[in-house]
């Protein structure tokens, strides 16, 4: 069966050999998972958020396990884009699979500089713009919660990286995700990924203290899947550009749900922690489930939701 998908962007297409990507922050830089499967079998992987300069990240504790999910407030710890380009990217199988750079910055100008720095890099297939991280004080959430700022950032990245497919990653922590989607589409995004984590909190009732040093953090994992499916559905109805769905995907059945809701591709996040071979197994098992159901192509399944 045909697992390949083409994300038809406004400026650039992104061709994937299958719709299974891994989500930023849950798959390291790919190499961490190389002992557990064949990286080049994936549709692609989105690396941990990159910033212009190294970031220390937040004070631990940064993660908390919750029922069917987890909270994180990692705070985008990373060694900076230069280290990634000189030391990590050369080790990644970017000729065989799509390596997508997730980028974060505190200002529109910095976003533009990051985009410009990555534009000429042959090994990077696309940029995923993180305007939705709930764990950083400056920028981050604000960009993702204001359609005007989100459009500004999108435009800055679009202009900074004219040769790349630009994915804008949306936050579910908004009143109308459809409005955000329309705004970034108008500003030039080639595709949209959703959702980032939902803002959450957990308290140790004995000590009466928050379990995260940062007090609040982002909820991910199976617990958020229904919210994510709803977001993908709303966004895909409101825009013409392709949608990459994520949030709580663990099984092939989950993948089909997102695709039927309107996703052209998906990302596997927290499930990588539940089983380090999760993404590799999904790539292997997806065609089996599709053929059982008589589905011959992923593209024809996208948005095939039947209502009424």
């Amino acid at each position, binding site marked *: 069966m045909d697992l390949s998908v083409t994300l038809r962007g406004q400026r650039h297409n992104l061709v994937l050999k299958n719709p299974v990507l891994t989500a930023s922050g849950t798959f390291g830089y790919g190499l*961490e998972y190389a002992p557990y499967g064949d990286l080049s079998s994936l549709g692609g992987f989105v690396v941990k958020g990159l910033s212009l300069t190294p970031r220390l*990240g937040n004070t631990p504790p940064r*993660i908390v396990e919750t029922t069917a999910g987890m909270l994180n407030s990692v705070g985008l*710890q990373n060694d900076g884009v230069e280290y990634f380009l000189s030391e990590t990217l050369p080790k990644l199988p970017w000729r065989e699979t799509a390596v997508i750079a997730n980028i974060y910055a505190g200002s529109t100008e910095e976003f533009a500089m990051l985009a410009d720095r990555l534009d000429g890099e042959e090994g990077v297939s696309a940029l995923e713009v993180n305007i939705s991280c709930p764990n950083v004080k400056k920028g981050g959430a604000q960009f993702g919660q204001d359609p005007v700022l989100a459009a500004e950032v999108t435009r800055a990245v679009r202009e900074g990286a004219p040769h790349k497919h630009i994915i804008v990653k949306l936050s579910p922590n908004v009143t109308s995700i459809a409005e955000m989607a329309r705004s970034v589409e108008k500003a030039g995004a080639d595709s949209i990924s959703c959702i980032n984590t939902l803002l959450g909190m957990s308290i140790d009732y004995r000590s009466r203290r928050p379990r995260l040093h940062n007090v609040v953090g982002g909820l991910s994992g199976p617990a958020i899947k229904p919210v994510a499916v709803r977001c993908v559905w709303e966004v895909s109805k409101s825009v013409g550009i392709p949608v990459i769905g994520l949030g709580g995907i663990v*099984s092939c059945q989950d993948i089909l749900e997102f695709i039927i809701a309107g996703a052209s591709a998906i990302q596997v996040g927290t499930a*990588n922690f539940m089983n380090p071979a*999760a993404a590799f197994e*999904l790539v292997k098992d997806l065609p089996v489930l599709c053929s059982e159901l008589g589905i011959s192509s992923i593209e024809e399944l996208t948005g095939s939701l039947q209502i009424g």
Partner: protein
Amino acid sequence: MGVIFCGVDYRWLGEVKNAMNNEKCCDLSVLDLVPFGQTGAESIFYALRLSAPNWPAWQPGQFVMVRPHSFGYEIPWARPLGICHMTTQHLICFFQVLGRGTKRLSQLRPGEQVAVWGPLGNGFAIEKDRPTLLLAGGMGIVPFVGYVHRHPQPWNVSMVFGHRAAVDCYPVDSINERIPLDSLRETVPGDLDNLIFTLQERIHDCADQDGLVLACGPRPFLRTVHRFAISFGARAQLSLENQMACGVGACLGCVTKTSDKWADKRHKDGFVQVCTKGPVFWADQIQF
């Protein structure tokens, strides 16, 4: 295969995928689960024997991520457990029931499947000619079972073991056979002072002999060891117990703060993953 827990059939959610049986990540069967110490309903200490993975190169001090299929979707993370001992026949872990994950581990039955990935992390230094002092607090004894088996000159090794439960709750027998073990049980508050005093004396002596101190246990225990090791200038390694989600260096959730002695200059006074850069650290390279 579907997943049933708490009487709820979660099959309709789709499958929790089983591990692909590659070298590092495999489904192992439970051979047996043996309670230690007081048995019956109150039992909280268990030796978990699993079918052997093929990891000939494991090091004492390394650990595994253990995730029984019965965790379902409800308990997303695997639990990190030290490798107690491993042969070509079996992998033995030893754990204490604390919360919901270890509770469910204690309900495993022979034949059940458990996803396991490892061996993870770096392991303790073995410097065979050097006097070596092992300091274990509670479950911190686990990696030292394998350590004393592996050590080529066990007459250079001794141990101080601080614990709260009765000593027969812990896997001490095979250690006792090989090296002198001073067991200090903490039942009344004064016992803690005694333990701290003993740690101080022994770390001091070990530093004088240019020996090696290796410690594993709860954070307050390690903090005490760290303080003495630094002040006496002892060569010391500590094995940290931080919360972990992935165990492979990807989530950046388990990080600990390094000192300015950390070798890689990018991460001096920064955060590094306990799961991949540790769990064993030289005392002077981390901050408490």
